[in-house]
């Protein structure tokens, strides 16, 4: 019973944070110069006052800001995120249409980076004093320091244009209309470059973190115990050091998984991945207030969900927390 109320409390806090984010961003976005009507009028190549007034009235932008906020927030409370001014579709539909692509991309990048990052970090920690360990760390540092978009550009150049191994952009082959497994394969092929590009940086992060964490765990007493038992070094590394070293990485990864969703703008742009990051950038540029707020809402929601998920995983991984010890 106590758990239920605790979870409710947690959810309550999350809702408050989400609403606060909406209000904050509402004012932030409205502080930007220009409004969607001006943008649309600008694009039309011709305009007059009547056209602008019509647009603003239609969008409700003729109302004072607090009224607009009130209308928007009362809509949100009923899970109505409004209409995209520009795309003339409900915001929720637009976001839900794009969200899977982003989740696929970030999910893949996340798994790749976590898996390979931990493996590389563990190897580097075990070989801390050997050249191979230094090489791994050197590479990690290199990936860490290279601007993401630059890697993306180079990857397209090498693997798509020059070698023609992988598609340069997009989510699936246009016009191929694959179904079933063929479709899955098609999407997977399209996924490789963007996911690798996005994952590379985080892979470097996890590599470094795993190594540091493992080196610090290896100083702990229970590692001495394990050695005193006569366990083989590999077993000690895997079972004792790595498992304990992963705890801080779970926390970090949880934080970053949420951040990745909104942070994939660059990758999605370069690879024309039809995700939510790109949609956000476009919505911002077009002052599509409702859409932008909606995207922020969902990004924040994902961050919160990932944080909760992290907590759960942490609890599974660390028995001390489950039982209320510190």
């Amino acid at each position, binding site marked *: 019973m106590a758990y239920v109320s605790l*979870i409710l409390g947690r959810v309550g806090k999350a809702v408050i944070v989400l609403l606060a984010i909406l209000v904050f961003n509402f004012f932030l976005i409205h502080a930007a110069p220009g409004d969607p009507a001006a943008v649309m009028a600008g694009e039309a190549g011709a305009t007059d006052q009547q056209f602008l007034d019509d647009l603003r009235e239609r969008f409700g932008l003729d109302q004072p800001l607090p009224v607009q906020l009130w209308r928007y927030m009362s809509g949100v409370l009923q899970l109505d995120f409004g209409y995209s001014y520009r795309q003339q579709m409900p915001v929720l539909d637009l976001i839900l249409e794009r969200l899977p692509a982003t989740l696929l991309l970030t999910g893949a990048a996340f798994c790749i980076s976590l898996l390979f990052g931990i493996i590389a970090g563990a190897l580097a920690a075990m070989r801390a004093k050997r050249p191979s360990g230094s090489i791994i760390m050197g590479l990690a540092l290199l990936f860490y320091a290279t601007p993401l978009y630059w890697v993306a550009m180079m990857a397209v150049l090498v693997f798509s244009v020059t070698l023609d191994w992988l598609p340069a952009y997009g989510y699936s082959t246009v016009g191929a209309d694959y179904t079933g497994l063929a479709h899955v394969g098609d999407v997977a092929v399209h996924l490789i470059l963007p996911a690798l590009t996005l994952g590379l940086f985080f892979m470097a992060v996890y590599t470094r973190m795993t190594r540091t964490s493992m080196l610090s765990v290896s100083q702990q007493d229970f590692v001495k115990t394990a050695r005193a038992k006569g366990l083989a070094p590999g077993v000690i590394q895997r079972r004792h050091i790595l498992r304990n070293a992963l705890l801080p990485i779970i926390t970090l990864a949880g934080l970053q998984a949420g951040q990745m969703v909104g942070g994939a703008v660059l990758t999605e742009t370069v690879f024309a991945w039809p995700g939510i990051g790109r949609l956000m950038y476009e919505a911002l540029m077009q002052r599509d207030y409702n859409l932008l707020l909606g995207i922020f809402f969902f990004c924040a929601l994902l961050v919160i969900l990932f944080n909760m998920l992290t907590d759960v995983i942490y609890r599974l991984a660390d028995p001390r927390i*489950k039982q209320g010890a510190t």
Partner: protein
Amino acid sequence: MSEPTRESGAPLLRIERLSLALPEGADRLYAVDNVSYDLTAGEILCVVGESGSGKSMTANALMGLLPSGVRVAQGRALFDGQDVLAMDELSHRALRGRRIGMIFQEPMTALNPLMRVGEQIAEVFEAHDLLTPRARKERALALLEEVRLPDPTSALRAYPFELSGGQRQRVMIAMALALEPELLIADEPTTALDVTTQAQILHLVKDLQARRGMAVMFITHDFGVVAEIADRVCVMREGKIVEMGEAREVLDHPRHDYTRALIDAIPADVVAAVGRPADVLAAVERPGGAIPPQRDGTQSTPLLSVSGLDKVYRTSGGWFQPKREVVALDGIGFSLGKGETLGIVGESGSGKSTLGRCIVGLNRPDSGEIRLDGVDLSALEGRALRAHRRRIQMVFQDPYASLNPRIRVGMAIAQGPIANGVPKAEALAQARALLATVGLDGGAAERYPHEFSGGQRQRIGIARALALNPELIVADEAVSALDVSIQAQVLKLLDDLKRELDLSLLFITHDLRVAAQICDRLIVMQKGRIVEHGSAREIFNSPQHPYTRELLEAIPGRRDAPAPVTATAGVL
């Protein structure tokens, strides 16, 4: 797997001219310098020394657990005829756990927090490719039974954090004994435990050793423990062996001054030691210091009176975890007279530290009164509280954590007066004088804490507490972290200062032997309550409460309690 082929009588372990070199820049060249000793099967050898004596290093070298940077400079360590130090990793690994077992000081950190106890024990068999997984589990259970863990079946499935310190140490022992090793190395296995638990563990080790006929290398700093279990003793100081011999021989007739000092620092008979810190110190320092007059606390006017003090700790639980409550203080009441030393004794979790913190004002009690000269401190706020607060100062436990590493010692002492309006120059001058009072030279004021030893730091801590001219000093485990010889010096300093400055002292400790040396009256606490209260002499001579009796009996080295006279009494 060669069966032991050594002829009977030949030592199981022979250390020959072993030297372990420290890395460059250490305070001396060798951690262990040209050390030789033997250990035969069925024998308990205690390696005794204070921190930094190198007593654990040899054991670590045997187990291949030397810290990085420390290397073998010369010598051999023959285990069953084979030089362990020259072995390749594979054969060495085959030895570890199987023929040599080891337990460590910190039961809290020596077990992997993420693995169940049963798995960790079973791992020992797995490491040496023995038994089926099922059989391993059964053996683990049997072992837990053997080390007398309550409810071994559920302990098997427990995570380390679910066990108490003593229980964890039992698990460690079970693990070390799993493969019935010929040699057990125990590195300060009881130091982190409460006295009562320590007694149990010592008993267990001795019992198991006797049943299995193993050799035990028991590393400790405590001659009380030596007296309790050792067959032979090897005393180390700064990497060298200063004395070695049969336990009884060394205890009764220590040949080396250092050994004598160590033994003397531990009163074998607490009753005899009551109120006699100067006597205790006589062996360490120059003889001197008058025997204090017997005082009765009730005769002096109460400086501090505490009544009805309650305190409950509540953890507010994250999501998923329920709130928890720990009763730290439960209706505590006592008074302390001017110039009196009151000892508060209890094991960990008894609430004794919370009591001290409530009195100095670091914690707020939930209810109850703390009156200083009749003024209720818990009712005061802000300025008035601050004005009263300076009258009670505290000496902390950890000499390393109680001084800000980035503040010069002089400034650290002067901070209090400065915060209370004394001009900086004056405060600093006063700080220098105080340093002299606690036995440090004036130049110390310009140095940083890390340039001082633990004992010196504790003196600085005392000087800091004195800087505000307090009337009451609360010393919370003020000597627990110090080596025994240093302990005695600090105790003497406290006692002297108390008398010179007419201070009252509230002395919080877990160590009855220490309490015996300095306190006029004692309070024994258990689980937040006062279970016994009386003059030190009364309590040691005729403890009323069973818990007090248990505590007294648990003191290591106190043989055949309550009989006061033993062979060691003579030296005191």
